[in-house]
């Protein structure tokens, strides 16, 4: 968890409207968040807009961050992802790169080693459970999450009816839930 305490401290200071902390937070995390928005938007200009939207929201919501929301970088990455999806669903997005599923394989092969380390046991468990899924379900879940694909876009890519995609995704999620121990029931 090399950088986690630092980001946490910066988020806390940002919540108190500390502009220098916000700048430092940006410097420390923007390249990771830009990787998130670029992956979804696939256009640098749109991805930059999504990044800006994300940091506007991070400034405003920093006070809502708590450790239960996960690591600070992951929490910010979720905001970047959600703002990216909002933008691409409004404006459309650039053409897909690579064939279905290739990028998901590359995700692990090209993973930032520090992120693997920082993700800890939770990430290892998720990875193991994802790998236990049928490849088609795994790729679909990862494409929905990492690329922000809608069911309709997934259906188009897989050349399958939307209803089928919905069923596959839901079954995949049910298997993941069982594999991960259905922890949300404890919450």
């Amino acid at each position: 968890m090399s950088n986690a305490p630092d980001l946490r401290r910066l988020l806390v200071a940002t919540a108190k409207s500390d502009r220098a902390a916000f700048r430092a937070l940006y410097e420390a995390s923007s390249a990771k968040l830009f990787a998130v928005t670029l992956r979804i938007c696939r256009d640098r200009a749109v991805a930059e807009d999504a990044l800006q939207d994300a940091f506007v929201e991070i400034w405003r919501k920093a006070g809502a961050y708590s450790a239960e929301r996960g690591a600070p970088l992951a929490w910010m990455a979720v905001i970047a992802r959600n703002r990216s999806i909002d933008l691409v669903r409004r404006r459309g997005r650039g053409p897909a790169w690579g064939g279905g599923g290739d990028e998901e394989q590359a995700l692990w092969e090209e993973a930032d080693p520090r992120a693997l380390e920082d993700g800890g046991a939770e990430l290892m468990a998720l990875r193991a459970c994802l790998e236990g899924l049928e490849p088609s379900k795994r790729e679909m879940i990862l494409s929905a999450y990492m690329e922000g694909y809608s069911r309709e876009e997934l259906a188009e890519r897989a050349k399958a009816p939307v209803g089928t995609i919905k069923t596959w995704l839901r079954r995949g999620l049910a298997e993941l839930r069982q594999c991960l121990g259905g922890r949300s029931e404890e919450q």
Partner: protein
Amino acid sequence: MTEERDLDAAERALGLDPIPPGETAEEAAARIAWEVRFAPLLTLPAPVEPPFGALEEVERRLGLDHAAMGAEIVEFSSLRRRMRGWRAAALTSMAAAAALALWVATPAEAPRYVAVVTAAEDGRAALIVDIDTGTGAATVVPVGLRAPQGSDYELWRVTPDGSAPISLGVLPRDPSLRRSIAADPGDVFAISLEPAGGSPTGAPTTAPVFTGEVVRVR
């Protein structure tokens, strides 16, 4: 919570379904639990340096930009006086800019501005800013600019009307970055040496180390 409702929450966490306006606290907790599970995946892709200036745009949108900073403005007005003493450097800039114009000359429609930002002491170029007013795109190319450990160079736009310098951001270490920069001929780009992360006050804390006037090349 039943499995079916938890899976509904998972679908919302994945963005497959929108979050309903009437989401209950229990549904929100289930959705957030899924978000937290998946979120570490988002940190896996290798970092990609965002375009230069995105932070400044965020600050502008949040109303955190650097206008009206009181005391610092006074300090920078002395800087503006000193800038008059840098005409020689500006002339060097213009010569360099004219040379640059030869290779940037393309079928011209919109005006194109260039600033060669040079060291006050020896006229050594530190940064070239090339602005295409047609597309609004600016290319900022640092030339051998390396801030000492624990500090950063920050780029400022100084307009001739005497208003406070506008921060254009901390100069990244990347060799060439594009962003949208507004400037007019006669403006001066100035670079100050600041604590790491940039000026904590929003105004330059030191006298400029490098300056360059914006000139029109087409």
